Structure formats: C-alpha cells, structure tokens
C-alpha cells in the first residue's frame, strides 16, 4: 500500500517518512503539537554542532551494528546476537586496554581494537559452529548468547574486573594512551569551540569498514560464495561451496564488525568498561540493515537516519517533558514492521 502510494519515492525514504508520521500521531494523541514536536526533533539532532556531533556519534554505533547484521544476512544467517557480540568484544578490548599502560598510544589502540574484534568474532563463531556442525538454529542461539553475554559482563564487572575500592560495576579507567582521538580534542587544538560530544575517530573506522564489507561481498570470491550460499544453499552446494566455511566466515566477520560498537563506546567515549554500554545498538542494527536492504554502502545513510532519530528523541525531553525518548523505539518498531513485512521480501 505504502509502496504504491510512494511510487517514485525510494522505499527507505517512504519508511522514514512513515516513522515521522507515526511519531506525530503519537504526539497528537497525548495532546502535544505534532509539528512542534517534529521541529524539536529536527533541531535537537541537526540544529547545532552539539546535536549534529551526537547524531554522528550514535550513527557510528549503528553503522557497525548494521554492517554486522547485513554481512551475516547475505549468507542467509539472521544474526540477532550483535548486541552480545559487542558486549563480549568490549571485554576483550578492556582486557587489552587495561594491560596497555606504558605502551605508545597507537599500539595500545591497535591491540585493544584487535582484541575487541577477536572476542566479538569468537562470540559469534560459537553459534556459527553450532549451526554448521550441529544444526542449532542461529536465531535462537544468537538470542541465547545475548543473554549469556550480558550475564557474563555483569559478573565480570561486579567481581573480577571491578576497579579496586569502587562500588560501581565498572573497571578502572584505561591508561591515557588507550583512547581514540575525539573531535573535541582536535577542535580545541585548532582553537575552535568544542561540541560537547564524544564523537571520535571510530566514525572513520566505521566508514572504512563499510567500504571493506562492500568490497568483500561484491568484489571477492569469498563474498560471492557467501551471497550464493545466502540466496540458495542448495545451489551453493552443487557449485562446490563449502557451507561450514561460508557460515563460519560470515559469522566471524559479523562478530568482528559488531566489535566496532565497543570501540566507539569504550575507546572513543567511556574509557572504561561499563555495564550494557552498547545500549541496544545491536538491535538498532537489525533495523538499519533492513532499511539498507543489506547493501553495505546503503548502511551509512540508514544509520544516519537512526542516529538522527535517537539524538532527536533524546533532545525532545527539554521542550516536551511529557514525551518519553522511547517514542523513537516505537517508531523504529513501526519501521521494521513496515520494511520486514509489508513492503518487500528482500531476501
């Protein structure tokens, strides 16, 4: 229906519009001025450098998470475990970063990021292996692994990894070298006013990962095998594609991409390991990947839309105290239902 109404309008734009309409209707339903609310949303996300920088900071998480979902999806695997993979990646990152005292900054960052990727990939490889070798449904196992990861992180932070003498469930701060360059630090050096946001060099890494994912899927032999397997496991089998290898590579890459959320949040912003730092980015990644049709190069604009919605939603509270920022989650759900169900069967 919406596809027909919006003929000539690209589907993602129509879906984004539908989300804004849904939010306006919600606002009107509780007696707020819908246009005023949308205006506050746009101004909060794009109106000043702080809003803009926060939008990009959230979008960084969503690019990584969206890519993680999309790469697995191209292999026909619905990885709902990006959230858990990010959390476990954060554990690896923190272990490396905390041990990096005295190392040069570039080395600390490199080792911590690699540790994050290895841990994230390993956490994704277990469900991959269970699917390839034991036939365990990847949707169910990745959901289960989210909760196991969350319990693991919570135990690590109340017991073995907690900072000495601290009551907070968090590690001690990382050594000063183990932190990524922030936009604000650069602005201060240049004598410009800082934005007050944690936007950092992870954004560049996310864009590089996006191009790399595109090259892998559409310009490499392995990527081709991955897509063939995703489109038709039977055809892939007759073409001599080793299914176990494809599943493991796709899940490993997916988990490694999920670790980007940990890099942005921990090396870029928090500089310590905290509870549930990914804040649901792994689930937003599902919406982002769907909106982008699982095309890596379309992930950035889709992630930007969600970054805009999240920052705008967070900023709404200032002008509209009765409007919960969770209105964005509802709009996101409507979008996922529209794309996943009503619009297309983009498999």
């Amino acid at each position, binding site marked *: 229906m919406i596809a027909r109404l919006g003929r000539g309008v690209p589907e993602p734009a129509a879906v984004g519009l539908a989300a804004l309409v849904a939010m306006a209707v919600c606002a009107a339903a509780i007696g707020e001025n819908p246009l005023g609310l949308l205006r506050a949303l746009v101004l909060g996300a794009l109106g000043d450098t702080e809003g803009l920088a926060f939008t990009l900071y959230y979008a960084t998480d969503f690019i990584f998470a969206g890519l993680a979902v999309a790469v697995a999806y191209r292999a026909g695997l619905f990885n709902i475990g990006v959230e858990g993979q990010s959390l476990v990646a954060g554990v690896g990152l923190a272990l490396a970063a905390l041990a990096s005292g005295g190392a040069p900054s570039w080395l600390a960052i490199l080792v911590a990021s690699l540790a994050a990727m290895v841990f994230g990939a390993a956490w994704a490889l277990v469900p991959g292996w269970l699917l390839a070798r034991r036939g365990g449904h990847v949707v169910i196992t990745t959901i289960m692994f989210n909760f196991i990861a969350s*319990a693991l992180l919570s135990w690590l932070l109340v017991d073995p990894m907690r900072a000495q003498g601290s009551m907070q469930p968090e590690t001690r701060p990382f050594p000063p070298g183990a932190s990524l360059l922030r936009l604000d630090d650069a602005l201060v050096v240049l004598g410009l006013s800082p934005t007050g946001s944690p936007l950092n060099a992870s954004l560049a890494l996310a864009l590089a990962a996006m191009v790399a994912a595109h090259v892998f899927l559409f310009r490499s032999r392995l990527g081709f095998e991955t897509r063939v397997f995703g489109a038709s496991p039977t055809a892939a089998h007759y073409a001599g594609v080793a299914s176990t290898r494809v599943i493991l590579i796709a899940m490993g890459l997916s988990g490694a991409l999920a670790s980007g959320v940990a890099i942005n949040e921990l090396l870029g912003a928090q500089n310590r390991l905290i509870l549930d730092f990914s804040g649901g980015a792994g689930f937003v990644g599902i919406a982002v990947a769907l909106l982008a049709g699982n095309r890596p190069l379309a992930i950035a604009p889709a992630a930007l839309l969600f970054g805009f919605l999240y920052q705008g939603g967070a900023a709404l509270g200032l002008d509209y105290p009765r409007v919960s920022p*969770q209105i964005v989650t509802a709009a996101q*759900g409507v979008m996922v239902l529209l794309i996943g169900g009503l619009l297309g069967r983009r498999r």
Partner: protein
Amino acid sequence: MAMENILSFLGAALRLSTPLIYACLAGLWSERAGVIDVGLEGKMLAGAFAGAAVAALTGDVGIGLAAAVAASMTLAAAQGFVEVERGGDQIVCGMAVNMIGAGVTAFVGAALFAEGGRTPALPREARVLPFVWGQDALTLGAFGVAAITAFILYRTRFGLRLRAAGENPRALDAAGGSVRATRHAAVAVCGLLCGLSGADLSLAQAAGFLPAMTAGKGFIALAALVFAKWRPGAALATCLLFGGLDAAAIRMEGAPLPFLGVIPTQAFQALPYLMTVVLLAGFVGGARPPAAAGQPYRRE
C-alpha cells in the same frame, strides 16, 4: 524450620514460573501452527502495561486483566496480519513487536502518569491477590491452561489442524483446512496468553508497571519452549524448572554450596540459556522445531 523453608521456596518458584508458563504456552500455540514468535516479550510488556494502567485508572482488577489481554491481542493481530496475510519475515516481525511494545508502553506511560513511565502503585482491590496456599488465580490458571493446551493440541480436530499447519501446511490445505484461519487463530491465542503473562507481572507479582519490567522473561520462555521441544507438558515442567532456578538464585545469593562454593547470581541467570543452547546443539537429546515453522504459506 526446614519444612517451612522448602515450602516458601516452592511457593516462590511457583510464582516466578507463572509468567514463563503463560508466555511459553503462548509461543507453543504460535510455533506449533508454523509461526515463529520472537515477539513474546513485546506482547507481554504491552499486556503488563495495559493491565496496570487500566487497573490504576479504574481501580478494578477485572477490567485491568481484560485490558492486558486486549492490548497483547491487538499487537498479535498486527503481527499475524503481516506474517500470515503478507508473508512477512516472522523473525523480523517478532523483533518489531518487541520494539513497539517497549516503545509504546514507555511513551504512553510517561504521558499518562508523568512518573517516568511507571504506573502508580496499585491498591489491593486493583491487584490479583493470593487466595489459596499463598498462590493467586493466575498461577493456578497457568496449570489449567497447560492442560487445556495439551488437550486441544492432541485430542481435538482443531489441534490436529494446528499441528498440520506447523508441520505440513500443504497437507492441511489439500485436506480442505485453512492454513490462514488456523494460523490466525493460533496467533490470537498466543496474544491472549502473552497478555495474561504480562498481567501476572504487573498485577500479581508487582503492584504496578515499570518500563521494561519483563526483563527478558519472554526470551526465557522462548528458551523453555525450545528446551521442551515444543510439547505442552514438557513446557510446563521446563518453566517450573527455570522458575525454580530463579527462586534458588534469589535465595542463595552469596551463600556457599557444598563442593561448589559461592555461585554468582549471574551463573543462575545464564543457566536457562546455556541449557537450551546445549540441548539445541544436540549434545543432549536434540530439539527439532515444527517443520514449517518460519515459512509463510503460499498456495501454488
């Protein structure tokens, strides 16, 4: 003293199992008919919120329960429309329902009561209260629902059709049954039971609604469903086991066990998921979902 302890532990286990039993049976209805449901959590949350909000506004627990069921069934109907009529991806729709459930309840709650998404604390007459052996009607009802589910599934014509819709929908179609109608009915029952599950959380276990108060219980129920291999009797037993683990975790917090020492609470929290993964991987027993689960049905 020991006897009293055991009884109070069993009572707690029973209470904590109740929302799991409803949600797990909800998933069972849907999935045995061929519709995978990862959106139990969202529908439970909608039920919990609508139940507590309406009970708070009217002061009547009966109207609250009806509202819980109505809210959850509305979401289920939307989900069923997209999944059954439009052939939408069932996993995606389930995730969407979770997002809508989390978002709408927090949003409407904040707008209605201005307490950060909470509902006001419910007075006694607006709650489901224990009346026999320290248990309430919802807990006792859960056992009844399990028995009715088993009876309908295995002893009635409709149950046979429902299982056919999940195992071999083409056969059901060829035999003159309607896959669409059967799946819609199953999804509606799923919505009804998710509503009761949510109502148990906000009207019986707690005196009101908190944002995200389901706290993953919808997914534990999903794990229990897999663990029970999609069978009603085993679903009941698994939910009692998982509820018992939960009660044990609360009780033994910090207390050492013989031979094992102090087991962290988080280990208990992760145990249902770990057990399910191990079972799913076929290391013990193995679990096979209904053959047509997850596949939209299209006539040739």
